[in-house]
């Protein structure tokens, strides 16, 4: 007999469900809509208790309410999501911080989960926790093969489904979604970057471990071939990145630059800009100025969204340079990435950073998964 902890699913009234086996329990969770469609680790009370302990907090501590269902995200329910996602106990503090971050009002989670747009929270991890839990910041950081990246991002999604109630076609009305809605998590390559770490630029100390959440579309690959003999290379790179940021189909271009855009530079591209004298702030200011479309261009494509004004008006895709999150990650080579955003919601879906807190947790002898 397996006991399943399903509190917070929004679909069942019982605190615990019984099943004859782990296989039956898995099928029951799929049937109840409590998974992301992939197999999960069964959140038995013992496993959940172990993860609550790993969080360092009491299980009934409420981290925030998750919309649109406005479910109370207790540490226990978040621990259940982390179990289901396949996390290790050491990952739990990161998941807890991510939940705290998306629950902040300025993240607009209720509206973000309910929109027809494809947006998903991208988790960017900074600080010592990256090495402590094995978060990947290099080659393939957004791809498969890295347990911490995969499961921490997935745990947040499962919390958003089971505590926030965001089930596709009922409360989550994304017309298509995107693969980052399964998991979307990477670490910054702080050691390889000439720029100060992202979290430091957002006001944290270098010693702090911080998760930054930002609503993001699927990444657009940005190819740029450098040339050390070409003095115009930095400008060409900036204009290439800006072209992706100002992609005429994206909300940032269509609704006037109110949203946050993430730019993930690979080490080679960061070096091109650094050697030309740019720091993170300088890159952001340059991109904000270059990522533009004329009103005439936008009017020709989508007149209802183009607003009033002359055809030669320049419309920025990111009005405020501070709304460009620039970080280094990935392997050395030709490709960087740009993630444009939804731009809507009462606060235009702000990016939120949250410090990861580590409690005085200890393992219970013999209590293993």
């Amino acid at each position, binding site marked *: 007999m397996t006991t399943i902890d399903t509190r917070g699913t929004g679909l069942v009234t019982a605190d615990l469900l019984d099943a004859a086996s782990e296989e039956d329990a898995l099928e029951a969770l799929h049937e109840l809509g409590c998974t992301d469609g992939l197999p999960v680790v069964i959140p038995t009370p013992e496993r959940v208790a172990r993860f609550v302990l790993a969080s360092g907090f009491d299980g009934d501590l409420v981290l925030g309410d998750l919309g*649109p*269902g*406005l479910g109370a995200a207790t540490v226990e329910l978040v621990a259940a999501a982390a179990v289901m996602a396949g996390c290790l106990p050491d990952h739990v503090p990161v998941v807890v911080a991510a939940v705290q971050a998306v629950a902040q009002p300025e993240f607009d989670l209720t509206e973000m989960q309910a929109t027809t747009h494809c947006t998903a929270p991208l988790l960017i991890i900074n600080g010592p926790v990256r090495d402590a839990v094995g978060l990947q910041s290099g080659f393939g950081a957004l791809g498969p093969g890295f347990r911490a990246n995969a499961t921490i991002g997935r745990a947040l999604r499962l919390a958003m489904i089971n505590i926030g109630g965001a089930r596709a*076609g*009922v*409360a989550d*009305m994304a017309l298509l979604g995107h693969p980052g809605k399964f998991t979307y998590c990477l670490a910054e390559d702080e050691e390889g970057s000439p720029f100060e770490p992202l979290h430091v630029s957002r006001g944290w100390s270098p010693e702090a471990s911080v998760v930054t959440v930002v609503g993001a579309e699927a990444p657009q690959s940005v190819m740029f071939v450098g040339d050390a003999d070409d003095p115009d290379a930095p400008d060409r790179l900036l204009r290439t990145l800006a072209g992706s940021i100002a992609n005429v189909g994206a909300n940032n271009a269509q609704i006037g630059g109110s949203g946050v855009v993430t730019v993930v530079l690979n080490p080679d591209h960061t070096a091109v800009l650094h050697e030309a004298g740019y720091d993170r702030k300088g890159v952001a200011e340059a991109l904000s100025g270059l990522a533009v479309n004329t009103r005439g261009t936008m009017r020709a494509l989508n007149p209802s969204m183009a607003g009033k004004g002359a055809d030669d008006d320049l419309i920025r895709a990111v009005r405020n340079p501070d709304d460009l999150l620039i970080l280094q990650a990935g392997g050395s080579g030709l490709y960087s990435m740009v993630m444009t955003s939804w731009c809507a919601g009462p606060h235009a879906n702000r990016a939120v950073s949250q410090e990861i807190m580590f409690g005085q947790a200890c393992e219970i002898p013999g209590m293993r998964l």
Partner: protein
Amino acid sequence: MALVTSAFWKQGDFVARSVGMPDVPRLMLPHPVSATGKENMRRVADSIRDGVIAALRGDGS
């Protein structure tokens, strides 16, 4: 009251329950309405007029 298209009816129910307003008056519109042209939007408006008035009077939704 809320005007909700058929494709979003379940979401409307979900959100109404979540915010503690399960009985908030709602009227179903066909889906889609957006971008279907002025003529169609007038037809939709005509078709729901009596329902809107009734709901605002509190005698049905």
